[in-house]
């Protein structure tokens, strides 16, 4: 049932939505193409304004990963995980998740291939991946697009949510998958 719903939605949702919006627009006598172009114009300037912020953030994250600092961090945190009975395989993912979307997707793929998607680490990693967002990327582009440099408590809030999502994933996967 869930499987059907998910596959149905992931292939039908966008086409249906686009068609419905355009048809409804026509019914309401909106000049749909003109309205579309009017709205689309703003897309370019917003995306271009992001570039400096993205360059800054991606360079810092790339350096942190390529220099081996990320690995070192994982190594230091491993004993803590073992104490909490969390499989060691998922720790790099937990640390990478808030920092880099592409990086965490690569780690998730690796866990799926080495442990198998239906293993406990595979299921836990899947749940963790879906339960939070790439906090750094979101903060960078959302605040960057409007030029805000004082982000107040947004970073700690985002990281706390990541930690919460991680811990709840562990508990709920233990309960659901044993």
């Amino acid at each position, binding site marked *: 049932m869930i499987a059907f719903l998910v596959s149905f939605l*992931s292939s039908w949702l966008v086409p249906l939505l686009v068609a419905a919006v355009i048809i409804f627009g026509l019914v309401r006598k909106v000049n749909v193409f003109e309205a*579309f172009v009017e709205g689309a114009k703003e897309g370019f300037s917003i995306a271009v304004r992001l570039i400096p912020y*993205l360059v800054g953030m991606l360079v810092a994250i790339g*350096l942190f990963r390529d220099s*081996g600092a990320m690995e070192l961090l994982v190594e230091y945190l491993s004993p803590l995980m073992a104490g909490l009975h969390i499989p060691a395989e998922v720790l790099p993912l937990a640390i990478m998740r808030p920092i880099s979307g592409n990086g965490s997707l690569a780690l998730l793929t690796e866990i799926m291939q080495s442990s198998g*998607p239906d293993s406990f680490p595979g299921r836990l990693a899947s749940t963790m991946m*879906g339960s939070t967002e790439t906090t750094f990327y979101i903060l960078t582009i959302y605040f960057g697009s409007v030029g805000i440099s004082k982000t107040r408590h947004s970073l700690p809030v985002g990281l706390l*949510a990541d930690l919460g999502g991680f811990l709840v994933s562990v508990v709920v996967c233990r309960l659901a998958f044993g």
Partner: protein
Amino acid sequence: MIGYLWAGFICIAILLAALKGEISAITPSIFKSAEQAVTVAFGLIGLMAFWLGIMKIIEESGIMEVLKKLLRPLALFLFPRVPRDHPAMSAILMNMSANLLGMGNAATPFGLRAMEELQKLNPCPEEATDEMCTFLALNTSSLTLLPTTVIALRAATGSLNPTEIVGTTIVATTCSTLVALVADRIFRGRRVRS
């Protein structure tokens, strides 16, 4: 705060590479990431244009009014100081709907549009407002009901039941969003107003 973290990432990385005798890896890493950033931004241009175009049709045809009525209690609770008819509210609601439906590539354009409108309500353009922080709390904690990317990856790696993690993901993401909203309220209250 992000500034210190940014500086920390870079300085620690360079120091570590120097200690390990791998300093030659630093320069190529910088250039690779800088290029990648522009690729990401350019990839966003088309998506932004398309979804903001669709959003304009939604606004002009009046569907937005229906959506606003439906989600009004939630919006009033989360963003009490954003005027109901302000364009920021439309963009926030579109962003939340896209997130819930697992349409990540549509959520970002709506989210950035919302930030632009929220910025117009901001008396101090360099500093985030309470509303922006709450909005970011929602977005960084993710609201997804359908983790589409993960399901696709599970199927591709031979899972017998790719969707079995939908239930656990919904529980975990609900909790992470609650943590974010509660933390947002607590930290906001402690702020020293200047």
